[in-house]
């Protein structure tokens, strides 16, 4: 039975109580502890910087050439905080409620409440660091509304909020590096986790420039390595984003929770060619002012501006009159897919819907639209060559975020003692669907506030024996890592890592994407082992492992995606309900909305690795709702 270590007592006091009950490490002793943070995105950089400020000896790892490149840099829309600066009825409780409901009742009340509470401190912290959030003329912070909620609680820095928040954390991290508390290991990829005596005591890394395989010892290890949307090959994630760190941890015994909960974002630029290497997201904030529609007629190829008003179907406004274009992402995405499946999609491949600003321009004028969305319109024009001030944008859903991740308890510690997981890499707060502008909030809550409180408690309450890299567990793990890389290099087959990745992605998108059925999942599960086998027999690589070898890096990551994909399908198949982003064709309401099955599935599915050719074992963490009433989600 999984113990999530949720403190007792009323919801509002749980974190307070937990913090009081936790043990502390005295300032003089802190520098005796070594903490490894893998990942320097929002979650990793903020954790490493804060632990450094406290005086711990921190080693931070990233495969990028500098922490500022982490995928968090790409987040556009904003970050939520229950400040209620607008006096529009917001509160910590409402943010908590919205997040639970948005996640379709598949997250923990206690975690989510804490997240909502900490949202207040995050904004304070970021402003103090100099993050240039948008301001009103009076000098106060500006906010806007964002997908799925009715209050304006999203703070933003033009369309580059993630960049500005990451730079804030990056700068704090650089300050600690200069102060000598944090040692940064850039261009260094973690490839394995090392356990000694049942505790996580270090990692194995590969230096991406020299290929050197090294061991690093620590008293606690944090994984903040981001999400795994790239299992779909085409996603909005950065090209290098991958699952290797968490997957290798999984193979060492860490539980993987809700792997099938993956989010598809509604407002992306449709795929245009076979060679497409990634999909570009356009901020969801576009839906605040843009209206989504398709022609009523099938196969209508007239230019959009020639289609008269009464021949347009504003399908989101029609289906969800109360929320209109602002319904949560899963509903917006699925609705778009459905109209395209009906043959009413627009654009070259019929895989797109219009996002129209004509009304907004009429209402606010071009200038105001430009002020609000100018950079997104420019980006759209760069990619498509179309002017969205004149013709409606075309959008289509794309894989974007993974709610699933390594299982963690309230302390953000996995089931492996000493292994903490933060940011998108853990499964913690978003249930089956994440609301807009809350990933940044979660990453920073984890990094600035939660880990710096819970890791000291772990260090203070456990007596950790000194270990060194000469311990056999390290040499063995090193040998295994080296062997796996050598194996990849020795195949000398004919297919590139990308071609396998592409095929995997297409398979997952078709069979385990926006909608899933028992049949599609079974098909995927039949195909995956074949694909994996072909990968290990027919992979083409050149060069050696002792140099910068980008194809080797890619192949190594794809090899993990190929395994993770199977777990995702197993999880999706076992969850015979629809909830949030997980939409099983078999489980819908009469009006085709997701139908949950709380009787059977109101739990977190945490999977345990049982070996390469054995089925993983399912552990269930039941979810109980004491404060929010379990209801069928409705945005009608």
């Amino acid at each position: 039975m999984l113990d999530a270590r949720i403190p007792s007592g009323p919801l509002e006091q749980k974190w307070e109580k937990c913090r009081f009950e936790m043990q502390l490490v005295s300032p003089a002793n802190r520098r005796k502890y070594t903490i490894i943070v893998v990942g320097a995105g929002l979650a990793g950089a903020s954790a490493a910087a804060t632990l450094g400020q406290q005086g711990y000896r921190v080693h931070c790892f990233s495969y990028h050439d500098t922490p500022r490149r982490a995928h968090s840099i790409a987040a556009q829309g904003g970050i939520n905080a229950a400040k209620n600066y607008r006096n529009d009825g917001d509160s910590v409780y409402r943010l908590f409620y919205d997040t639970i409901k948005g996640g379709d009742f598949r997250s923990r009340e206690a975690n989510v409440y804490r997240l909502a509470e900490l949202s207040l401190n995050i904004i304070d912290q970021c402003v103090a660091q100099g993050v240039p959030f948008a301001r009103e003329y009076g000098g106060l912070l500006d906010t806007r509304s964002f997908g799925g909620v009715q209050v304006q609680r999203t703070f933003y820095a033009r369309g580059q909020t993630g960049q500005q928040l990451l730079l804030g954390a990056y700068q704090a991290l650089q300050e600690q590096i200069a102060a000598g508390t944090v040692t940064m290991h850039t261009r260094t990829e973690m490839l394995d986790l090392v356990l000694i005596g049942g505790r996580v005591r270090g990692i194995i890394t590969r230096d991406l420039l020299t290929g050197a395989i090294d061991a690093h010892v620590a008293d606690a290890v944090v994984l903040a390595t981001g999400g795994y949307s790239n299992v779909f090959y085409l996603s909005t994630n950065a090209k290098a984003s991958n699952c290797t760190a968490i997957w290798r941890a999984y193979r060492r015994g860490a539980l993987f929770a809700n792997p099938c909960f993956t989010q598809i974002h509604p407002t992306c630029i449709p795929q245009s060619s076979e060679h497409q290497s990634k999909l570009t997201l356009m901020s969801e904030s576009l839906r605040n002012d843009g209206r989504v529609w398709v022609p009523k007629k099938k196969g209508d190829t007239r230019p959009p501006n020639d289609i008269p008003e009464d021949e347009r179907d504003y399908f989101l406004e029609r289906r969800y009159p109360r929320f209109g274009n602002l319904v949560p992402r899963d509903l917006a995405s699925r609705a778009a897919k459905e109209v395209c499946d009906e043959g009413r999609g627009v654009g070259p491949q019929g895989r797109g819907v219009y996002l129209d600003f004509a009304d907004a321009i009429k209402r606010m004028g071009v200038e105001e639209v430009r002020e609000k969305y100018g950079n997104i319109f420019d980006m759209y024009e760069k990619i498509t060559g179309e002017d969205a001030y004149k013709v409606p944008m075309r959008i289509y859903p794309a894989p974007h975020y993974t709610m699933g991740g390594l299982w963690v308890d309230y302390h953000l510690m996995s089931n492996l003692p000493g292994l903490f997981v933060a940011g998108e890499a853990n499964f913690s707060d978003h249930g089956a669907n994440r609301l807009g502008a809350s990933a940044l909030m979660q990453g920073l809550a984890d990094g600035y506030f939660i880990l710096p409180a819970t890791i000291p408690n772990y260090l203070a309450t456990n007596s950790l024996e000194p270990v060194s890299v000469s311990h056999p567990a390290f040499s063995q793990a090193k040998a295994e890592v080296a062997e796996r890389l050598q194996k990849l290099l020795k195949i000398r087959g004919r297919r590139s890592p990308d071609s396998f990745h592409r095929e995997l992605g297409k398979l997952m998108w078709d069979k385990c994407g926006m909608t899933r059925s028992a049949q599609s999942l079974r098909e995927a599960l039949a195909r995956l082992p074949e694909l994996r086998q072909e990968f290990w027999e027919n992979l083409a690589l050149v060069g050696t492992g002792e140099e910068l070898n980008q194809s080797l890096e890619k192949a190594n990551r794809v090899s993990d995606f190929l395994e993770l994909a199977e777990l995702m399908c197993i999880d999706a198949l076992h969850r015979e309900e629809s909830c949030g982003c997980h939409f099983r064709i078999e489980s819908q309401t009469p009006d085709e909305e997701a139908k949950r099955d709380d009787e059977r599935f109101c739990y977190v599915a945490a999977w345990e690795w049982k070996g390469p050719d054995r089925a993983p074992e399912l552990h269930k963490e039941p979810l109980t709702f004491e404060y929010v009433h379990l209801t069928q989600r409705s945005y009608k």
Partner: protein
Amino acid sequence: MKFTLRIWRQKSREAPGKFVTYQVDGITPDMSFLEMLDVLNEELLARGEDPVAFEHDCREGICGSCGFLINGLAHGGRRGTTVCQLSMRFFKDGETLTLEPWRARAFPVVRDLIVDRSAFDRIIQAGGFISAPVGSAPDANAILVPKDIADTAFEAAACIGCGACVAACPNASAMLFTAAKLVHLNVLPQGQPQRYQRTLNMVAAMEAEGFGSCTNHGECAAVCPKEIPLEFIGRMNRDLRRAIFRRRFERWRDATQ
């Protein structure tokens, strides 16, 4: 579309490099520049040759990973655009494209088109931050920031650290990068206490990295994918001037008190 590519190939920092010519065919106008290189690399891999190493990640112009010279122009020379945002429809069918890495003593070549830009991190380490340990922050709205100041700070903070400014500068100077961070932090009320020390430290760090000396050509701002204005260099110069003389004034004041 067809292209002839002349690409700088260099195995490692120490190894000698040279241009190698490749042909690519079957490129469509809606492909991005990096997708075109993907196609080339797939072909090279199929032939058992080393793929071209180039850095990239977000492929949407925000992470700052990508960057090299195309026909003598950093990021290809289109206004406000990174290499990854270039689409092949901007190029002429049959054109010869020369790809060369950023060249600067402070940016040694790592491999092919990849250079080591860690000098930028060290400049930030010297003072590119506001010291605000977690836990110490006042309420976010307790600090008022006039909108124009917030806008200027944002404009400066938009820098993605790609290094195109250094690459395009005939002097291989890092003034625009350093100025962008200084302006971001130095205009904000939160940044005032450390303003002049920050300026002195970051400028010293920049100089220690072996970048060249600015002669105000303006090439940096012209290729900057985030269009950071040259004017920010002027602001940095002013802050440095004040920092130098203000320090003396303060010392004199302390001594006479």
